[in-house]
């Protein structure tokens, strides 16, 4: 079993007529994802790689039965797109778009929450349940090279590191149950603490691997959750330990800023260790460590 999605998940792509989204939809079809419809207002009636395009999400849901949506529309249209999907009854909305104003993000997340929809992202690379389905662009044109089915769940603040970590596991014969890029922004709909309970319930998942970064408070919350409620083994790897020594400087993602007093890797690592997690120094060590627990 995977979490969040499987081979039966019926996917709608909002913004499917965009160049990148069109390529992505083709790759998703090739991976076996059931992409049932696309939505681009004003382009209803067209087809993209054989996928029917509708003007509204509700039309796509009614005619094609979508239950999950991927949002790949320009930043200032994203809030409306997410709210439209939630209003149409979609329960899982994966937002790939970057640079959405935070006021829009707050509003769309609150609205989705009120409709009982889960939002992954914004600025997420998506989700992959290896050999089941792929929502988004993880693994690019050849996901089967980096990802294979197996017992490790991955939650990552970085899209690139999702594939990098899966790749090193796969090279060592260790597969993954579900890999989720939660997005590199400060405010995202779903964080470690929202996903850990799902991995706790998932029988296939034996170990959870977290890719963390400096800045913010998401790791602190995750460590507390793991200490109190999580019983499976958690392996943690941090990118950007050097940022601790450069407070106020921004590297990589928008959320990677260490403020005086909080957000440091040092403090986060201390909390993870005290919660019983294994924090590795380099990611090259991960396969050897995980082998002990599967």
């Amino acid at each position: 079993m995977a979490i969040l999605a499987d081979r039966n998940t019926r996917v709608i792509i909002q913004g499917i007529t965009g160049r990148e989204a069109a390529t992505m939809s083709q790759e998703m079809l090739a991976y076996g994802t059931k992409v049932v419809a696309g939505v681009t207002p004003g382009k209803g009636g067209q087809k993209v790689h054989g996928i029917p395009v509708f003007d509204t999400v509700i039309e796509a849901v009614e005619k094609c039965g979508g239950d999950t949506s991927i949002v790949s529309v320009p930043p200032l249209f994203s809030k409306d797109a997410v709210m439209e999907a939630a209003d149409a009854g979609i329960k899982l909305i994966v937002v790939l778009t970057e640079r959405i104003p935070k006021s829009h993000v707050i509003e769309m997340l609150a609205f989705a929450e009120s409709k009982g929809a889960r939002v992954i992202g914004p600025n997420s690379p998506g989700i992959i349940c290896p050999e089941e389905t792929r929502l988004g662009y993880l693994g690019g044109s050849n996901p089967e090279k980096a990802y294979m089915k197996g017992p490790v769940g991955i939650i990552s603040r970085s899209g690139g590191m999702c594939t990098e970590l899966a790749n090193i596991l796969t090279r060592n014969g260790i597969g993954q149950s579900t890999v989720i890029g939660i997005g590199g922004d400060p405010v995202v709909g779903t964080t470690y603490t929202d996903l850990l309970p799902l991995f706790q319930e998932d029988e296939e998942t034996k170990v959870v691997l977290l890719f963390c970064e400096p800045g913010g408070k998401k790791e602190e919350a995750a460590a507390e959750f793991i200490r109190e409620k999580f019983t499976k083994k958690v392996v943690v790897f941090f990118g950007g330990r050097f940022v601790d020594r450069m407070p106020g400087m921004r590297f990589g993602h928008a959320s990677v800023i260490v403020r005086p007093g909080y957000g440091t890797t040092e403090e986060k690592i201390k909390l993870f260790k005290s919660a019983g997690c294994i924090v590795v120094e380099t990611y090259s060590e991960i396969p050897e460590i995980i082998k002990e627990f599967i």
Partner: protein
Amino acid sequence: MRFYEFEGKRLFKEWNLPVPEGELVEKEDELLKAGEKIGFPLMAKVQGLKGGRGKKGGVREIKDEKELLEFGEKIFKEGFDGTRVRGILLEKKLMAEKEFYLGITIDELEKRNCILFTEGGMDVEEIAKTGRVLKLTIDPFTGVKSFMMKMFFATTGFKGKTLLQLSEIAVQLYDLYIKMDANLAEINPLILTKEHEFFCADSRIEIDDDALNLQKKNLERFNIPIREEKEREPTELEIKAKEIDQLDHRGVAGRVVEFDGDLALIIGGGGASLTVFDAILRYGGKPANYCEIGGNPTVKKVQKLTELLLSKKGIRGVAVITNVLSNTRVDLVARGVIKGMLSKGIDPSKFPVVFRVPGSWEEEGFKILEKYGIKYFTREHTMDEAAKFIVELLKKEG
């Protein structure tokens, strides 16, 4: 983007938030006139964008003209805290009975805006540690209503006129925060005078960089220029790199932070670049820069970037290391880097250089690298191994 205090106060006035009478002095010879207008004793406040101004002596009580000239001359000549200043804000001195902190910002865990309030005008970070902060999470659809603020502040013991004025200040501050697409709006300290009137003694406003397009009109109206801000002034190399990044809209190649090492880095992916930089340091390498590429940049961009990074004095090696790429084409990156090296008169088969860039079009990319005799790692090897290889190669070469 962060506003100067005087810019924030310009907004405060527009939103009817009480600010002390003040004058911005931008040149040394305007000091006396402005000082006389405000009247002594007064407060002189350096206008810069770095935090911790108070602790570093950037806010001073000034008794008379002589003190004002001394302070002003020093600041205008020498700058403050290592940077030039925008000016000095002179303000009427308030007789404070009590000081408070009032702020609005995003709580990333609750995914909502929240209002923070506490007594004492110290550092926010210090305040956060005490845990004595009163916090109210805001429903984005209801916003902040007057009655909510009255209830909120009444719980802290405010009554009558002061309760009303404080509530009104919070309502207005939230309105400003929302209309300006701010991520942070702080009044610290918010002063209650002996006459029981509130004044916003400082302002700190940061607006969302992703909303700058939405705020163009407002910024023009308040005469606030859009500016790039960093903890320090950008170096020449960083400025040139940014120009390269803006050559065209395809991909990122040119977000550079310069360091004083000897190894030029072209590294990819938000999280992967952090990982690679850590690895280079761990094995004892000395990065000359932090530089991300991604989103499938053009050959030309990568070439220009390579030329720029190689133009720095004392560069002894190049490391091109990324995660397994999803959409950036390996062959394009390889061609760009090789072209850049060749145009600088560097033979890639003799210069210390390593590639670890697996992903789309990797077979084509590897062929090109082989042709030019460049050492590369495939996805069978980690980014750590590539980092270790180049660092040890440089050590061997001494």
